[in-house]
């Protein structure tokens, strides 16, 4: 549905040039929810504006629904933009228009007759659950309601793609969840492709199918959310995942482990620090006790957390393993055969 080919954008500032986006290539499939995540200043807001050409790229191609938007003239571009809805962090609703008027605006712009507008706006307001608020002004609404108006407005022109620029960043966790549920629902019901920009891993964790992680204008890694969570490759990704699923051991635990290892220095078998990640059905299987029974090794659980990513169980477990090298290899082999990610992290000690 969307293909970015080697797009770049530099802003020429008075003091220095800012390379906001540097040679990014991405493909986003029709019907998926694609997350672009990064710290602030990573270039993700610029990247999302390159998709509807609110920002013109210095180089590269922006292909949406088979057309390179950078080659369109002004009128064709305006028509193409109607196929791409957009919602914003600060909602960007008109304070001079009611809820109804805000949702009607895109339809007025294309000269839709008044009765048709009324029917369509009512349908949209029902979809986002705001039928009773049609005559109120945005200032009288809560943040979550404002974003629902934004979503209804973005859907008015029946777009194929919805761009979401930090749409939940100004909302509390509860409201964030309900807005994300709504996005997921319209993704299902309308088959809408959603590109979601965020700095919050918990947003990605809840609704994205695939993600790209941005850092300093580049995409540092991308893939299915579960795969990225299971085996993050870059430091940024690791630390951002750490915010929702803590992989790092608390300092007190580390100190205890160090003391224990010092005390047992000279033992036949040294301790090994392992980090295991279980995904999906494996979470329910007694794999650890199976490993203990079959290979006769000791596990000492130091830290663990179970969460849900993309509707699947996701557990991370840090433990200290002790046994002969042979037993240890056997146990790790068993776990890996059952799709558990096993990582030796002795280096953190």
């Amino acid at each position, binding site marked *: 549905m969307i293909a970015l080919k080697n797009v770049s954008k530099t802003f020429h500032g008075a003091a220095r040039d800012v390379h906001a986006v540097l040679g990014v290539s991405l493909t986003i499939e029709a019907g998926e929810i694609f997350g672009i995540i990064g710290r602030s200043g990573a270039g993700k807001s610029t990247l999302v504006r390159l998709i509807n050409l609110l920002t013109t790229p210095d180089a590269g191609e922006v292909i949406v629904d088979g057309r390179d938007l950078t080659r369109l003239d002004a009128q064709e571009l*305006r028509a193409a933009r*109607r196929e791409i809805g957009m919602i914003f962090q600060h909602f960007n609703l008109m304070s001079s228009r009611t809820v109804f008027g805000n949702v009607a605006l895109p339809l007025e*712009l294309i000269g839709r007759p008044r009765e048709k507008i009324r029917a369509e706006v009512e349908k949209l307001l029902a979809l986002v659950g705001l039928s009773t608020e049609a005559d109120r002004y945005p200032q009288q609404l809560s943040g979550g309601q404002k974003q629902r108006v934004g979503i209804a407005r973005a859907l008015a022109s029946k777009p194929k793609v919805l761009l979401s620029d930090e749409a939940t960043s100004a909302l509390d966790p509860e409201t964030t969840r309900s807005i994300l549920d709504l996005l997921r629902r319209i993704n299902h019901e309308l088959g809408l492709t959603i590109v979601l920009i965020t700095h919050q891993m918990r947003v990605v964790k809840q609704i994205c199918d695939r993600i790209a992680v941005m850092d300093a204008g580049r995409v540092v890694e991308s893939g299915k959310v579960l795969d990225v969570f299971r085996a993050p490759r870059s430091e940024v990704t690791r630390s951002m995942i750490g915010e929702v699923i803590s992989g790092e051991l608390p300092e007190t635990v580390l100190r205890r482990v160090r003391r224990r290892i010092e005390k047992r220095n000279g033992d036949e078998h040294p301790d090994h620090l392992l980090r295991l990640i279980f995904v999906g059905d494996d979470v329910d299987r007694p794999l650890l006790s199976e490993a203990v029974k079959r290979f006769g090794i000791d596990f000492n659980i130091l830290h663990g957390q179970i969460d849900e990513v993309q509707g699947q169980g996701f557990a991370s477990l840090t433990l200290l393993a002790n046994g002969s090298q042979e037993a240890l290899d056997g146990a790790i082999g068993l776990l890996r055969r059952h799709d558990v990610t096993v990582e030796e992290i002795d280096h953190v000690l």
Partner: protein
Amino acid sequence: MSSEMFALFFDSFLETLLMVGLSGLIGAVLGIPLGVVLNVTEAHGILPHPRFNRAVGLTVNAVRSTPFIILMVAVIPFTRLVAGSSIGTTAAIVPLTIAAAPFVARLVESALREVDAGLIEAAQAMGATDAQIIGKVLLPEAFPGIVAGLTITLVSLVGYSAMAGAVGGGGLGDLGIRYGYQRFLPEVMAAVVLILIAFVQLVQSLGDRLVLRVSHRGQSAQTAP
């Protein structure tokens, strides 16, 4: 107060009303589009033309920084061309309008600047044309600020019109100078001043009320004190 005196006050008040009302109206008709032009041609506007913007801005500033009494005299040839005479109420409307238009333009420009850039971005993302952005987004969103600006303009015009009166434009200012000052009738002068104060109060509070009515923000856009 004698009935002649009352008639004199009434006529003078009507003349002031005519001068302020007409110059305010024509000033708004010229000034609002000028303010839009100033806003959209800015470097960060939707139709950036920095050099054109600077040229228009300089002209507007030149008119605004000329003291009204000098402006009035300087445009006499033009006034004579338009009004057929350089003396009288109709003639006074010409320099008053010339003073009002750039004043309105700057106030409109700053009201438009208050419109959140995010709204313009949202409209562009919807595929709005530049004309639609101006007509459907910028002007409606800035409307309370524009009303507040027009109120300030009318109040300033009341002061200017009194000055125009001094050089034969008629109106309450003229009445005050001729009777209150030149004929030593301090009670006439006091009455003129009181009527002007009451009139300005009325214009200001009507303007404020209108701003409140058209503004749907939590807090109203304030006009200058």
